[in-house]
Structures are given as C-alpha cells and as structure tokens.
C-alpha cells in the first residue's frame, strides 16, 4: 500500500510504500489515550501469493477499535461489521446507513465510502475501490484517510499515527534521477539523511474512480528513515 503524509507546515507531501506479503497486518494508528487503534491487512492482486501477481499490494481489510467504548469496526471490500462481543451489526457496501451512539458516528455511503467519527475530533474516511469483478488481475481494495485527528493524543503511534504531531523535514539538492521526469533530492528528516524521488500519488477521497493527483517526495525502502524504527516493527499478528 501507498502512504501519503501531508505536512501542513511545509505545504508539501511525503509518500512511501510498504511492501509486505498479502495477509500481513500493519498497525496504522494506536492512541493509548483515546483508546483508538487502526490496523490494516494487506492483499495483493488476484491469485497473488508471495511469489505471484504483479507485486502490488493494497489494504483489503481494516480494523478500527475503541478500547474505551468496547467497540470495533471491521471493514472488508464486501462488508462492514461493527459492534462488540456477540452484538455485531453487519452491513454491506450496498447499504446507505448511518449508525450513531454516544461518541460515535458511522456513515456508509453505498458503494462509495464510509465515514467514522469519534466525537468531534477524530474522523476517518474509508474508500471502497471497486474494480471490474471479472478483471483478471485486480480486485477491490480499500483506502484509508485521516480527515481529522486533532483530538488524538501526542502519544499516538503507528505507521500513520506517528505523523499526527508536527514534524519537520528539509529537501535540498534536487537533481535529475534515473527517470528524467522524476528528480531525486536529499531529505533530512528525523535526523536521517535520505535520498527521495519526486513522484505523485492519488488522493481518492473526493473522486473514488479517478482521484486527485498529489505531488510528493517518495521515500524508498518501506519508508526507512522517515518512519520510527523499521516497517516490520508495525506488523501485528491480527486485525484486533
């Protein structure tokens, strides 16, 4: 999957990929104060095992829990299961439904996206990317966007959560790269000096089929140097 980190103070964007085997579960957000955790399970293309397919990976399943509310949401490309214990509600991406309870609102917009809000300071959007059912290679996948995180604590961590608090970076020495359309540069971030490449990713929040092009500095090697530790530190055994 691709990660896009917009840095408001710099008015610039950093991006990176995490390349792991399908089935791997990554911790995206973990906040011990609000109790919110978000995890994502990787899928590949159709029929892709560790050694097949195009090598491209996506999120096929997402898990959102709020430990203090004893509430969890499991989102797959087929259905959305939310609740706790045995009292689970199951919805499909064909439903248009809003589920509300104290401190939580979940809205599923038929075949498009779902919006999860915890109170008025945490809002996530999950986008359903549907492909042609009979496509020989590609399959449906999910996009995860953090729209509002201002109520998340400073202790929030995870592949995305670590970037909720302000951080700084510098990019200099922009130079031609191996691809003439994508210059390389040097980035200093979190006390590391990295070679980055100017590239682009797509933000699908507004338009789930075409998306909006976002220019970003691409950090190679699974975000090494940008993320705290290494990407394998974020692998967890299961969605919940």
């Amino acid at each position, binding site marked *: 999957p691709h990660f896009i980190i917009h840095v408001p103070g710099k008015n610039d964007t950093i991006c990176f990929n995490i390349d792991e085997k399908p089935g791997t579960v990554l911790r995206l957000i973990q906040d011990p104060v609000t109790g919110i955790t978000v995890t994502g399970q990787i899928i590949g293309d159709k029929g892709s095992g560790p050694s097949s397919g195009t090598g491209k990976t996506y999120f096929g399943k997402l898990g959102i829990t709020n430990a203090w509310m004893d509430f969890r949401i499991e989102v797959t490309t087929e259905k959305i299961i939310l*609740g*706790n214990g*045995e*009292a*689970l*509600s*199951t*919805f*499909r991406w*064909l*439903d*248009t*439904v*809003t*589920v*509300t*309870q104290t401190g*939580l609102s979940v809205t599923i917009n*038929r075949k498009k996206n779902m919006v999860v809000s915890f109170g008025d300071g945490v809002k996530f959007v999950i986008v359903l990317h549907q492909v042609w059912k009979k496509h020989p290679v590609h399959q449906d996948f999910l996009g995860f966007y953090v729209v509002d995180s201002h109520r998340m604590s400073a202790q929030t961590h995870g592949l995305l959560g670590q970037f909720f608090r302000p951080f700084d970076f510098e990019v200099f020495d922009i130079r031609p790269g191996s691809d003439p359309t994508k210059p390389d540069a040097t980035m200093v971030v979190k006390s590391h000096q990295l070679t980055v490449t100017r590239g682009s990713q797509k933000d699908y929040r507004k338009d789930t089929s075409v998306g909006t092009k976002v220019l970003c500095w691409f950090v190679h090697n699974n975000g090494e140097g940008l993320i705290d530790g290494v990407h394998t530190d974020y692998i967890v055994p299961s969605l919940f």
Partner: protein
Amino acid sequence: LRLLGKRSLREGVVDGIEVYSTKISCKVTSRFAHNVVTTRAVNRADKAKEVSFDVELPKTAFITNFTLTIDGVTYPGNIKEKEVAQKQYEKAVSQGKTAGLVKASGRKLEKFTVSVNVAAGSKVTFELTYEELLKRHKGKYEMYIKVQPKQLVRHFEIDAHIFEPQGISMLDAEASFITNDLLGSALTKSFSGKKGHVSFKPSLDQQRSCPTCTDSLLNGDFTIVYDVNRESPGNVQVVNGYFVHFFAPQGLPVVPKNIVFVIDISGSMAGRKIHQTRDALLKILDDMKEDDYLNFILFSTHVTTWKDSLVQATPANLEEARMFVKNIRDEGMTNINDGLLRGVHMLKDARERHLVPERSTSILIMLTDGDANTGESRPQKIQENVRNAIGGKFPLYNLGFGNNLNYNFLETMALENNGLARRIYEDSDANLQLQGFYEEVANPLLTNVEVEYPENAILDLTKNNYPHFYDGSEIVVAGRLVDSDMNNFKADVKGHGALNDLTFTEEVDMKEMDAALKEQGYIFGNYIERLWAYLTIEQLLERRKNAFGEEKENLTAQALELSLKYHFVTPLTSMVVTKPEDNEDQTSIADKPGEEATSVTPSMAYLRRIGLGRPVAQGKALGASSFSDVPLVDGD
C-alpha cells in the same frame, strides 16, 4: 361403439356432474398475490342438477371478483356497501331465494361457497378472484392454497408465477398430500433472477387415492414459500405514481428484551391447556438469551408472581424459572385486570429503577382462555385501566386460548397498546402455536422504527411507524407521489438498534425503476396501486376497531370508499351475485367474516329461521376445495 364405450367410462363424472377443469392461477408481483380460481363443469345427467363451488381462501385475502358463466352467459358479482347489499339480500330472502356465503373456516381460512342449478347438458364456469399481500414471517413469504376437490378433475392445475424485482433467493412448494409419484412428475418449481414458477398438474391417474379408486388424494394444503434477495435493507418500487417501500435489514443484533408473561391459571385452564402452556413456557425459556430479563405473573382469583421484579435470564435464573413453570397449577377464577396491571407495573418499575439495560425493549404477553369474572370484570374498564397504565410505553400481546372468550376484547386491548392479539387454537399443537408466537416477537432488531419521505412529495401514506422490526419480518409502506413525474426521491428509515441508532437511506431513481419494471408487464398491471389500497384498507379497518364516534365514522367511510373503488370484499362491503335458478333470478351474497365468527349472529339466526342456511352439502362440490360439515355461521 367405441365412442359410446368411452362415454360410459367417462372419468370424473359423479352423480351426473363432470368437473373437467380446475385451475388455480396465481400471479405474485412484489408480494402482492392475485389469485384466480376457475372451475368448469358440465351436467352430463339428463335432468337439472345443482352444483356448488367452494374455495377456501386466506383470511387475510380480499375477494375482488366472482363470475358465474352458464352456457356462455356471464353473471358477474357486484361489490356493494354491506347495508345496500344486505337489503337486496333480504329482499331476495323474503322472496324465498337462496344465497351463497363466505364463512370462517379454521385458523387461516375462510370459505367461499356458491351453488347453482345447471340444466341437463349445460356447462358452468365459476371464477373467483382474490388478492392478498403476502407477509414475511421467519424469513419467507408463504402462499397457502387449500386443495380439496371432491372428485377427480380431468385438468387440474395450480400455476403460480412470481415476479420479484429484487430477485428471488429461494422458492419451494410443498403439499401435505404429496406422494413420490406426484413429486416427481406433477410438481415443478423453478426460479431464476426475478422470476419464479410453480406448477402442479396431476393427471387423472395421479389424482386417484389408489390405482383403482375413483376418489381423489388431492386433499390438503399446498404451500408456496419464497424469499427475495436483499442486496440492501430497503427496496422502493414505483409504478404509475404509486410506490411501495419494503424494508427488512439483516445482520443486526437482537435488542435485549424485558418480558413479562401474564398467564391465566384459572380453573378453565385445567387439563390439556395448562399442560400445553407449561410445555410452551419451558420451550420459550430454552430460547431466552442471557441479555434478556423476564418474570412470570399468574392470575386466577388472585395474582402471584415468580419474582418480585424482573430478573436476568442467567442460566441459574432460567433453571429456577423452569422449576417454577413445571409447578404451575390451575385454580380459582379469572382476574385479568389485576394480572395485567401487575405486569405493567413490573415492567415500568424495572425501567424506572434501571434494573434493565437502557437499550432494551419491554414486552408484555398475556395468555387467557376466558373472560374476566372476578375483580374488575367490565371489559371496557379493564381496557381503560391497562391503556392508562401502559401509557404507550411498550406493546401488549394478547393470546386467546380456545373459543370460550371475548376475542374482540383481547384484540382491542392489544391494538390499543401497540400490540396484537392472536387466537391459540385448542388443538394438540397449541404449545407449538404459543412457542411460534413467541418466536415471532422474540427477536426485535429495531425499535421505534420510523420511515420518512420528503415532505410535500408523498400523499396517502400507509402506516410509517412501527414499535418493532422483528428478525425475519418486513416493514411495508406504500403511498402515492404528489408528482408522478418526479425523477428521484429519498426515503429514510430510522430506528433504535441493540447498540446504536440507525438511519437507513434509500435513494430511488425513477428512470432506473422504470427500466427494471418494464419486464413485469406480463404479470398484472397496476399492482402497486392495488397493494397500496389493500394495505390502506387493512390498516383503516384495524384502526377502526379501536375508534369511537366521529373518528370511527371517518375511518369507516374511508375504508368503504376504497373497498368500493378497488372492488374488495372487506368487512364493510358485500359482493352480490345474481344468478339464474329454477327459471327465476336468485341473489347470492359474499361477505367477509370477522374473527368473532364463532357463534351465530342475530341477523344470521334470522336468516336461518327463514330457511336461508340451507344444507349445501346436497350439491356437488367443485373447485379447489369442497364443502364439509362446518357450522353454518357468518361473522358479519
């Protein structure tokens, strides 16, 4: 010679009458069933013979048409206001003419009977049409057809076509009389996409009760069950400016219940009834979930309770409850008032003292087999007391065990309190009936369901708020669009779930709808308008039961107007059939009997005295079912 030989061996001729064709044609479009029962017979005797046509149809159905055709001349049925029809009917009676009637018949059915004299060599065709909205119970729609021809029929056929725009997910047909032979060749059932088809077409030989018998084995229930695909929880269909909205979400957790059983243990419950009640309660206890709360209140002359307040359905409490239930014994008289008021108080108290979960629903179920005869015994006062005590806070379900009770009283009281009444028939399966009722109301997935449409866009809406949505059921709302050319509209369904509040939104795109519905033309036309009319009349009649004075008059007028406009035989209308007999015009009348059709009403007693209630068994029974020795009653 050969021809003569054949004539002498003609199959299916009984007492000179040959029923050569009976066809039950069912067309179901979006749960709305349009059934036509056609029987054709010929009098092969050398003198005039009387033949009768009997059809048993569901109590929930409305007859919409009946025609009698003799030698090519058709005598249609006319639907009139009941009083007008009655006058015509009484006039006919006073002139010594006879009549056909619809009577209550068993638990689910009512019987339509008409008879006519047919001249030697003449042919007669009877055609009865009725319509009903199939209701979803326990995850399926059920269409029930009683099959009981009294003789072999050369061309016997049940032909059901089902069209469901949502697509059919399962379809099955069963007959209580089915044999392997019939199963293999006479019965076919198939479904694909939006269309389903069931055909039952036994040959003459297949109809015989034994290879050399001349009597028919076709005697029993023929049931078609099906369900539809539910890609989304709601489905809205619009045709010609009328719409219907079906709502049945799946995958929601059950809302915990706080349930109080108020059980009549008076002396009249002695024997089998109390035994069956105990059996049913024990089964119900097995189905209780740990999140539920319960209690038992027993009433006879006095009121006793199992526990002072509601208790959680923990394994230990359930075990104790089983012991309590096993020891229920009959005694004393019937104090309905105090029993119910204790139950109401217990449920309210549990809520006020936060003894039960915040997100739970309260239900009061009363079972009685007789009228109140001690304590407050005036029905209206009991109704008033209960209504005031409940204050609309939770539903009351009344189960009337057997026939020796005032069912109207129980029904009115239940309807006044957002519940419903059900008669439990005093048969060997009474315990299963009790248990079945409990299962219907045991799994609420949503409470306080409200269906909302854009303001100023909708007219003539049927009931759009329901206290509960039960698992396996379906909420149906129909209405009329202000502007039949509008391109789209949105419907919201709001309800409280076990954990949270939910709002389901259904966007209706008319253009999409038009395209989807084009292919259904072959089934039958303005079905949504008729469905809306059926549902509206049904709900007006239900509200009418609880209304008084001017409100009752208004409800009656509305229901009557629609019944006449859409040709439904409802409790407010009658169908008059004028037929020729003995060279003299004769009038028959079809009324819809009510649930209280358990005794002869004064007007019927009058009619019987003057010889109207003639023993129709003297005729030959044709059609889908036959006449048997039922009491001559009419519940008008």
